């Protein structure tokens, strides 16, 4: 199988539940040209190297893909001209990236905001319990819709200051964004795919418009939420410019819950799929944090992010990535590199040396990781403790369209009862 074929197969929707055999094929060439102007990186060491190389840019205006989509988005968002072309931190390079990350982190984590994440714990626990209380008397739930989704979306709304009552509205927009703009597979060029992409752009514009109004309100009426503090705070870098704040608010709202949903669902799926794991983790809950890292290794919530490109010719693993090429760091593939992880396809909750790429690597390492860890830990621990004799209804479950943010669309679980 050529790298081109392996890549195309891995991206196909029909292989969404298990792209890994194709990633294994692809990894035979750890850095490979897989399409016109696109290089896929699937080897662990090669990915680590490129994630830390300052000649690899995350600024999508440098990428052959990003330039096209940025141009498209620009044309369609003319009504937003007042805000110019703003990039969030995930699609920016230093020094802009560093400044925005500092401006945002001041209101999210240590050293300036050391207590915020921990303070969410009791609310998360309460919510997990309430959702399972609702399932009392039933014997089946959809882990995705009934359990994994409601928790992180409520938490991120509270932290950012996005009204939870607007969730039904932005939920649809984000769904369209994921299905239309975060599908790098061959289907996107079909008529159906083009319609999805168009709808994705439209919904993204609506989401950006919505967050623009929210940010404008915070500029006028400062409050206590993270987004409000970002645009009003007078830290060493000054307040974040409203147009940057809109771009980062979009990023934080989407990435702040979607990947968590996928991770919770994949945790439940992986534990139930592997006989003995449920009993092991229930008997020794201290193994849960390590088990979650192992799930992130096996089922990285962000399989790759199509932002990066080479700013110079970069020679690596016998391949020269030409200047100007898109560079896809495929975390989901590198995380199963047998030269780094023995028995890479095995779910081993007690795996010790597990420095995986589930949170990325380098300066763009997951901003919300500590919050996500807390949410997933509480959600998984509560589920394992309270659901009696749970088992999968269908395996593999149906998957969502996106091959970037990959996760089950539904995950039906049968159980005997929910314990108190």
């Amino acid at each position, binding site marked *: 199988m050529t790298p081109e074929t392996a890549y195309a197969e891995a991206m196909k929707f029909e292989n969404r539940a298990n792209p890994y055999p194709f990633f294994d094929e692809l990894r035979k060439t750890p850095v490979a040209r897989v399409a016109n102007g696109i290089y896929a990186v699937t080897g662990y060491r090669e990915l680590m190297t490129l994630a830390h190389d*300052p000649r690899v840019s995350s600024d999508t205006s440098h990428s052959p893909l990003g330039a096209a989509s940025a141009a498209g988005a620009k044309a369609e968002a003319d009504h937003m001209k007042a805000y110019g072309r703003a990039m969030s931190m995930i699609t920016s390079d230093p020094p802009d990236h560093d400044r925005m990350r500092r401006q945002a982190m001041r209101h999210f984590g240590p050293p300036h905001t050391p207590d915020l994440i921990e303070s969410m714990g009791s609310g998360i626990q309460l919510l997990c319990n309430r959702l399972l209380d609702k399932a009392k008397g039933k014997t089946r739930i959809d882990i995705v819709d009934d359990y994994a989704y409601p928790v992180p979306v409520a938490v991120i709304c509270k932290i950012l200051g996005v009204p939870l009552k607007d969730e039904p509205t932005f939920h649809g927009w984000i769904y369209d964004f994921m299905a239309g703009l975060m599908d790098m597979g061959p289907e996107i060029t079909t008529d159906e795919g083009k319609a999805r992409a168009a709808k994705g752009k439209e919904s993204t514009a609506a989401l950006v418009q919505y967050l623009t109004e929210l940010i404008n309100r915070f500029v006028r009426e400062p409050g206590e939420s993270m987004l409000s503090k970002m645009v009003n705070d007078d830290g060493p870098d000054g307040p974040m410019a409203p147009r940057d704040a809109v771009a980062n608010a979009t990023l934080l709202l989407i990435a702040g819950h979607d990947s968590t949903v996928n991770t919770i669902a994949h945790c439940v799926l992986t534990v139930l799929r592997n006989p003995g794991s449920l009993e092991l983790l229930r008997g020794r809950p201290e193994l849960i944090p390590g088990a979650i890292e192992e799930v992130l290794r096996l089922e990285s919530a962000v399989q790759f992010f199509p932002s990066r490109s080479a700013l110079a010719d970069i020679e690596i693993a016998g391949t020269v990535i030409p200047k100007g090429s898109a560079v896809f760091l495929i975390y989901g593939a590198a995380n199963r590199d047998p030269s780094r992880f023995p028995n890479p396809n095995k779910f081993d909750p007690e795996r010790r040396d597990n420095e995986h790429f589930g949170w990325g690597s380098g300066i763009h390492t997951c901003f919300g990781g500590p919050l996500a860890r807390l949410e997933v830990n509480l959600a998984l621990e509560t589920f394992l403790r309270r659901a009696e004799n749970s088992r999968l209804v269908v395996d593999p479950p149906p998957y969502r369209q996106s091959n970037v943010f990959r996760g089950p669309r539904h995950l039906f679980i049968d159980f005997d009862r929910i314990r108190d």
Partner: protein
Amino acid sequence: MKTAALVADLVTEFKTNGRIVIVGASLAGLRAAETLRDEGFNGKLTIIGDEKHEPYDRPPLSKQVLKGWVRADHTLLPRTRNVDAEWRLGVAATGLDRSSKQVRLANGDQVPFDRLLIATGTRARPWFNPKEATLEGVFTLRTSDEAAQLQAALAAKPGRVLIVGAGFIGSEMASVCRELGLAVTVAERAEAPLVGALGGVIGDIAAEMQRDHGVDLRTGVSVEALEGDAKGHVRRARLSDGTALDVDVVVASLGSIRNTEWLEGAGLATGRWGVACDAGCRVFDINGVVTDSIFVAGDIARAPHVLYEYQFLVLEHWDNAVFGGRVAAHNMVSLEPDRRPHLPLPAFWSGQFGVNIKGVGVGPFGDEIVITQGSVKERRFAATYGRRGRIVAAVTFNHGKWLEYYGAMIERSAPFPPPPPGYDQAGDMKPIPARFPPPGVPTGIPDVVLTGHDPTDRSAEYRPKRR
């Protein structure tokens, strides 16, 4: 086949009934002890330490402890497992008899071993004038007890603090003093702070940081004398430039002395420069022949390093103690071909004046520097050091996430200067002299001489120092 079985039997027998002694209840010693148990060593394990404390962490002593956030006795190292050892704390090892395989203790006890790990580390170099050193208000900082005393002195809001020596520890202490709102003078013999480790180019930046934070930094001077009041408390310091300072606290931050005196006469390759060993942590005897039962780890281990032309280097870094301890432990309970090398990429960090400084490699091995990424003005940047066209070290100020990239280059002996970054380039990427001071010239009479005439009869001999 038969030999292999014999070797396996030997290892099993040793793991069951062997006796291991670790001298140094330190970071290296503790991690080594844990590794020994992890590797299935079930024999008798003794850990000897001259301090009364269980193994504790030192990096916080010059930072969080001095600032008063963490008590000096609250930095005990976390344990990764139960080590089931006999702890001999508060009693120093004073000698080693290799023929009877015993460690002598200060209280006269003899502790027998089959394998020995030396992890005695270093101590603070005391103030050079013993009489002045006894003045109240004169401190050094290396141990937990010293940190407790200095912290109490700083908390008492002294007038002016004088720190003699602007290495990493001296600079960190100056930073804490400013955070506590104390007036502080730093006196440094070199042209700038940190020049020994990072050179004059970075030293100039460190000097600016100190002055911007209100430190009275005096470079190119030494402190020649300390004077006390009638009660024996230090009150005045005389500097080599003829000036004098009124001071209430003086901290001598003059580097460290390696704790190898207890090994004098043991017939090992030890001295002021440390304990020489191979890359597998096995100690050389006085002739330079490797021993098979004596190992060394941590701040005093001096081993040849493949990345630095096989020069013998000591690496007084935290993770060198951890990984060196682990490799030494593994090799203590293994035989060929299962022994492993300890081949660290040197790495260190410091926190001072709100800046996180991190480095990899050996800066002083290089002679040129190029600042690659970020902004010196904003004190967030990365710089690399080179020697003869290859990269040998890197340092970052508030830019540690890029170290991985430079570390990988150092491991590959990649060309210097490195290729320009694609964004946030710091300057013109032209290397300039790094301005390291010339290496120190060893003084005094050598401790070891070569004796014997017949080639089969030649050996090194230890000549005790005149004290």
